[in-house]
């Protein structure tokens, strides 16, 4: 048993709350579950709020609040699951409620960087364990018993001496007046009964029955609908518009402009277009018609960029530029100059829009001295801070609620749509739901940047890696991590970064930077292994072996044994090395967000088509909280990653995005997905790490490496099945 110091603020405890009183929100899970059992429909009249995460009902049911935004990564199930584990409650007695933004009770209510479980783990366990201890202490007092003699199981406390039992629901009223202890015992991982099991999505029933869970579905009596028009190209702004005709169109209420610029923008305020035209109206179709009919003049205020220029700039920077040398071990340049074999390769990747299935949207009801902001945002706290500036209201008067998100992939880290809704509501003096079209969404910005990386490596005559040089550029920024593999595995290494300016707004996109670096690095490793005459897994393991025995440098980001561990696991499970006629295999591994993932992709030829027959994936993410949800995340990362590696790109002509909807922007469809995915987790009792992103980056190079086996061509430029593979390959 682990003993942990309690970290809770006392004021968030010890509250008894009547149903119907302020602040109680009931989620759909409860109602739909109750609807099936009419007897249960009478809600208990008193609920005991044990702490910020837990409310115990007199009938023993427990409400657990899920603090973080739900974006499809399934934290609304897995975060409460961690609480329930330590609380020792029957999962069937738990209903889950999405907590509102409340920074006095919760920390880091943010969905991003695959961090919700990783950073929430300790406080969620503590919340469950503390609540359990309070109830056990109350029972001990009630029975005049020793705490040590009491056990808990599925919401029942038992006195092992007398056999007496009491349910949480019957003792909760007494537990709320017990002082919070300084220390609470946490379970040994061996004693987990819920964590690691297959637990279904708590919103599963509401999703399959079409309940209005999403921001796009949010309605409040009397609200107006609004849509925006943004400039058609990056580098342009509004010059003028003529709304004479549009104002008389049916259902149109108003046409005006808003400006969401604020004096002190945060990182989450990425936005190329602060000044927008707004059309409000009664129905979506009427506003859409007005949107099409409105005559608008735009003017260029900065460069109108083209994709050809982007490629030229990336190529120029990577060939001729010099930037920040972030890490140098030994003298890689000198080693390469005298090495028997030197290989240089350049890899590129295009801008990408996020394209969550639900386009951006937000509800706002801004009053003179307060505001309600409700919708799908990965960064509710940041939205509140920016909205406070924009609206001139103190943060404490702005209430933010999170709806379920129809995907995000990083797009909803940037809450401009929330600010826009707030600005519109303030302007019209009433409540409003802002909705984007797919076109608004795809052409608005916050894209994954375009990247290029050049690697140069030297091999000795025995095939060992002598030096490795990485040079990365991006529009804007770069994609390299100086202290990631292969740093630490060899004596001569360098990492250089050259940022390039662009007026196209960009931001984090699922597995930021890693989503490209993995492809470049792991495709290059495959070529190096081949040139060294070694098996690609052996080649990598040799390097990890060095990093385990005698690492170079002290700041390497990864643990070499865990990295090697996932490669060994996938090698074993996929029977790597066994020749299978007609099957073309590729492998890759990558470390990101604290987790390790290795994948083997099997391709087969069907006529002219190359099909993905199977993907094998090994993951080390520490303790797996919810096995079913975890496997689903890995499968999703693989399918999403494959589609983007194969097909997806956003190009520009005179600043205007050339793809705006799914007729000209391709993501993976059902028939293109792998026929089978098999997922293996390294058994672990260490702190859980990320999962919504780590399996995403390595699938792209694993696929490209398999494609090389099938076609004989190496793949340097994403998307692999669309782009000319020789464009930047002057170093081949």
């Amino acid at each position, binding site marked *: 048993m682990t003993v942990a110091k309690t970290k809770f603020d006392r004021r968030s405890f010890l509250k008894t709350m009547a149903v119907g009183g302020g602040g109680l929100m009931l989620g759909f899970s409860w109602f739909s579950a109750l609807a099936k059992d009419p007897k249960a429909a009478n809600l208990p009249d008193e609920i005991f709020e044990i702490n910020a995460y837990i409310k115990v009902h007199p009938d023993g049911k427990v409400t657990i609040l899920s603090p973080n935004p739900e974006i499809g990564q399934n934290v609304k199930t897995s975060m409460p699951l961690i609480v329930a584990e330590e609380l020792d409650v029957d999962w069937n007695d738990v209903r889950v409620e999405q907590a509102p933004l409340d920074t006095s009770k919760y920390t880091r209510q943010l969905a991003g960087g695959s961090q919700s479980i990783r950073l929430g783990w300790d406080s969620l366990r503590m919340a469950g364990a503390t609540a359990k201890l309070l109830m056990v202490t109350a029972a001990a007092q009630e029975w005049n018993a020793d705490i040590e003699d009491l056990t808990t199981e599925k919401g029942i406390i038992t006195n092992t001496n007398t056999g007496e039992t009491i349910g949480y629901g019957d003792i909760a009223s007494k537990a709320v007046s017990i002082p919070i202890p300084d220390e609470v015992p946490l379970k040994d991982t061996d004693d987990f009964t819920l964590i690691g099991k297959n637990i279904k999505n708590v919103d599963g029933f509401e999703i399959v029955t*079409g309940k209005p869970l999403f921001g*796009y579905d949010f309605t409040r009596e009397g609200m107006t609908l609004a849509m925006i028009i943004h400039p058609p190209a990056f580098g342009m702004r509004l010059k003028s518009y003529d709304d004479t005709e549009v104002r008389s169109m049916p259902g149109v209420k108003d046409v005006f402009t808003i400006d969401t610029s604020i004096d002190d923008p945060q990182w989450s305020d990425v936005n190329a277009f602060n000044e927008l035209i707004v059309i409000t109206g009664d*129905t979506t179709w009427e506003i859409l018609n007005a949107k099409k009919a409105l005559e608008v003049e735009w003017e260029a205020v900065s460069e109108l960029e083209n994709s050809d220029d982007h490629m030229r700039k990336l190529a120029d920077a990577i060939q001729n530029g010099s930037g920040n040398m972030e890490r140098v071990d030994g003298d890689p340049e000198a080693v390469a100059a005298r090495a028997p074999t030197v290989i240089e390769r350049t890899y590129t990747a295009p801008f990408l829009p996020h394209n969550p299935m639900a386009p951006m949207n937000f509800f706002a009801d801004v009053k003179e001295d307060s505001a309600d902001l409700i919708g799908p945002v990965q960064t509710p706290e940041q939205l509140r801070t920016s909205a406070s500036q924009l609206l001139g209201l103190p943060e404490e008067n702005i209430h933010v609620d999170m709806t379920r998100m129809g*995907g995000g992939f990083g797009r909803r880290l940037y809450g401009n749509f929330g600010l826009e809704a707030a600005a519109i509501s303030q302007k019209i003096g009433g409540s409003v739901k802002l909705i984007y079209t797919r076109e608004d969404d795809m052409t608005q910005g916050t894209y994954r940047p375009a990247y290029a990386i050049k690697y140069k490596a030297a091999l000795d005559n025995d095939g060992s890696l002598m030096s490795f040089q990485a040079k990365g550029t991006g529009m804007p920024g770069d994609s390299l991590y100086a202290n990631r593999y292969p740093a630490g595995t060899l004596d001569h290494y360098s990492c250089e970064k050259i940022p390039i300016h662009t007026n196209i707004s960009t931001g984090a996109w699922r597995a930021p930077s890693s989503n490209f670096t993995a492809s470049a690095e792991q495709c290059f490793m495959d070529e190096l292994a081949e040139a060294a005459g070694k098996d690609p897994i052996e080649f990598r393991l040799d390097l990890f072996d060095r990093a385990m025995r005698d690492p170079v440098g002290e700041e390497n980001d990864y643990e070499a044994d865990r990295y090697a561990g996932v490669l060994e696991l996938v090698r074993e499970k996929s029977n790597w090395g066994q020749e299978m006629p007609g099957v073309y295999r590729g492998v890759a591994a990558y470390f990101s967000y604290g987790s390790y993932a290795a994948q083997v992709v099997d391709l087969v030829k069907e006529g002219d088509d190359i099909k993905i027959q199977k993907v094998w994936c090994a993951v080390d993410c520490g303790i797996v909280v919810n096995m079913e949800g975890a496997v689903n995340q890995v*499968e999703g990362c693989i399918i999403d990653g494959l589609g983007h590696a194969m097909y997806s790109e956003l190009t520009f002509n005179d600043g205007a995005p050339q793809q705006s*909807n799914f*007729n000209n922007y391709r993501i993976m469809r059902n028939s293109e*997905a792998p026929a089978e995915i098999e997922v293996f987790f390294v058994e672990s009792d260490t702190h859980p790490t990320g999962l919504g992103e780590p399996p995403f980056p390595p699938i792209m190079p694993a696929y490209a490496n398999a494609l090389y086996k099938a076609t004989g061509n190496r793949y340097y430029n994403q998307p692999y099945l669309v782009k000319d593979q020789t464009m930047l390959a002057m170093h081949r």
Partner: protein
Amino acid sequence: MPTYTLNINGEEREVDASQDTPLLWVLRDHLNLLGTKYACGIAQCGSCTVHLDGSAIRSCTFPVSAVRDAEITTIEGLSENGDHPVQQAWLEHDVSQCGYCQAGQIMTAAALLNQNADPSDQEIQSAMNGILCRCGTYLRINKAIKTAAKNS
């Protein structure tokens, strides 16, 4: 503005809407049936799929005036208690991630099974190919359809 009497989920509903209004927006804005989703508006992603006399259609490009006396079924009307074999199979396989596209996936799957009680893998892929899921839940979708076919 013309008035249309629509048969939706077994009920007659009257709406005033211009004749070119897509059924999707009639469902969502006029009738507050929010289970049918907007995601592309140009019949490319299938999130808006509903049944017209039992066949899957894209409501985002289907004008309300073309419905006439056909029976419309939306996700809200697929079953009374969420116990349609496709919905149950979706829960069994824990298909959803973000969940936004799943109403369209489920309605398409249910229409497929209406017409083909025991579809092959290829028939499933071909029927489901029009419904995009960026979360990448396709394998679970296909498994759930197999289960639903068995349990129908």
